[in-house]
């Protein structure tokens, strides 16, 4: 029997490997105009609306980062507020005390969070599953309690961000708006890049079978650690946005476990394990939050129940519903085979048992 000649990068002479689909090119045609319109925001909408959108952008960044961690890396953390706190306090400390330009202080705080998350990962990775989740929470609590003990950071009563006082309120809000929009683009682009890279392929393999993936040379722990650090940096970026938007940081607000609840609900409702899911989830979460704002804490009860129901009955979330279980992809991370035999393979797929 003669083996077919295999050319590197070519699956079969008649078969093409594609990543983008019509829907993803169509998606790009939607995403770019939306971004252009959003970028013009400060010229179109009032300050209150801009501040609300900054809140939405923060939720998108947080959801995207939590999805990277849990949806792709398989790590359920309920301690990402640790890095939100580092980002928020980092911005205040670097901008107000050290005196760096606040827009430069944000990336510096993000890098600091990334550096701190590395030793933290060695502690947290001793635990797995649900115990990993609570372990990350304990670490966040420790950071909160330590922050409370530092007089330079205002102790338990918190500290105000004054570095923006040079700007007029309108300018400050517009700059923070653009910063936050840029943060969304960066968070989504980094996730997209990771998932299209070799690392992303490795994660898909780990998700399907960690032992088999490891035996094929996927460095499971190292990949997870990389994602853990990236997610920490992304959460710190969101923390910087929160501090810049609210101008006041207290340990109880920025280290609040509520942020983890928000992230989890956003990702679960939108659809875990997709790039589009957290964006959809953040918009739905933000919409419900605004719509139900008169009902006090009932909005969180309703969203929590929704998240439980979706976990049990609609595991791919709202985006799974919209996209017809992944047929539409704005951000294609997988590979698709297209061949003259496609009709045959489609028929085979239809005949195959559902996963």
């Amino acid at each position: 029997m003669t083996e077919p000649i295999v050319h590197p990068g070519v699956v079969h002479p008649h078969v093409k490997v594609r990543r983008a689909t019509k829907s993803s090119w169509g998606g790009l045609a939607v995403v770019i105009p939306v971004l252009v319109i959003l970028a013009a925001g400060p010229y179109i909408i009032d300050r209150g609306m801009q501040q609300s959108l900054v809140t939405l952008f923060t939720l998108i960044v947080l959801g995207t980062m939590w999805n990277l961690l849990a949806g792709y890396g398989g790590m359920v953390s309920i301690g990402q507020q640790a890095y939100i706190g580092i980002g928020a306090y980092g911005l205040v400390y670097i901008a107000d005390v050290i005196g760096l330009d606040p827009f430069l202080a944000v990336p510096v705080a993000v890098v600091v969070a990334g550096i701190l998350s590395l030793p933290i990962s060695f502690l947290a990775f001793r635990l797995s599953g649900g115990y990993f989740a609570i372990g990350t929470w304990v670490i966040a609590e420790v950071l909160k309690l330590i922050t409370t003990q530092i007089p330079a950071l205002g102790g338990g009563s918190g500290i105000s961000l004054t570095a923006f006082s040079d700007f007029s309120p309108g300018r400050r809000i517009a700059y923070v708006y653009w910063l936050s929009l840029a943060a969304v683009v960066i968070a989504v682009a980094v996730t997209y890049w990771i998932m299209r890279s070799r690392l992303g392929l490795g994660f898909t393999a780990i998700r399907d079978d960690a032992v088999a993936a490891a035996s094929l040379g996927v460095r499971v722990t190292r990949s997870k650690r990389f994602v853990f650090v990236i997610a920490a940096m992304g959460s710190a970026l969101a923390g910087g946005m929160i501090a810049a938007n609210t101008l006041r940081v207290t340990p109880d607000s920025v280290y609040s476990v509520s942020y983890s609840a928000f992230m989890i609900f956003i990702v679960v409702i939108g659809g875990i394990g997709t790039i589009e899911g957290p964006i959809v989830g953040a918009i739905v979460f933000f919409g419900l939050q605004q719509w139900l704002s008169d009902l006090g804490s009932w909005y969180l009860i309703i969203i929590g129940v929704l998240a439980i129901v979706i976990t049990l009955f609609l595991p791919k979330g709202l985006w799974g519903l919209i996209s017809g279980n992944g047929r539409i992809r704005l951000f294609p991370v997988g590979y698709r085979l297209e061949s003259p035999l496609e009709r045959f393979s489609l028929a085979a797929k239809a005949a195959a048992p559902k996963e």
Partner: protein
Amino acid sequence: MQWLNAVIQGVLLGGLYALLAAGLSLMFGVMRIVNLAHGVLAIVAAYIGLVFVENVGISPFLAIVLVVPIMALVGYLLQWGLLNRAISKGGLAPLLVTFGLAVVLTQLLQERFTADTQAIQIGALGTDSITISDNISIGLFPLMTFVVGVLVIAALQLFISKAPLGRAMRATSDDVDTVMLMGIDNRQVYALSTALALATVGLAGMFIGMRTQFSPTFGDAMLIFAFEAVIIGGLGSLWGTLAGGMVLGIAQTIGAQVNPSYGVLFGHLVFLAILAFRPTGLLPKAVTA
């Protein structure tokens, strides 16, 4: 002598933490799920007890007799209604569902009882103590809590190793598929395990409510302390959990002795130190639980 007193108080506090942690350990042992609503459920039990004592007007100890079976029933229904389904979905579903439940229950308690702190009044028992020396006195109620904690751990250990249901729980933990072949309904075993776990949670919640002031968000700290007791003690060992609870209790009371605001922080730091230097815990896997 102050320090010795702190250690004694810490050991007594540890009994309460062990009582609180036993259910977390049990559910993980049988089903491999970590119930993130564990702490909130203890506080739910405390609020049910509060309603019995304040609104119905019965004594706190009679309330315990009512709250424990109520929580067991809650556990049974919770497992059938929600968690069995979540387990069958696999992956992250049990964690996401129990986390969602924790948030929803906390918010519901806040809606019903406000965020103010409350306490279940136990009268003179709350302040009675046995004086040993000038600096050391043992509170009667903390001592009672400690004894109950140790007894519950011992009873659970005995139940798991000897009783038919305990045997079924261990077997289900080891190999679900074989257990099903043997004619045991694993979902039923799970439901009874959660009922048993929540009965201990109910007891723990009542003792917490009688010992300290609590509020709806108090469940967060309860989950964390129970978890720390389990990890410090070592997974899969109920006696380890008792030891872990005591280590945590001592760390907290010594920390509070150094500076009143350091108590909880010291507990966390001891936990992190154990995680760094002895990640299997103090008494790992002595007996499967």
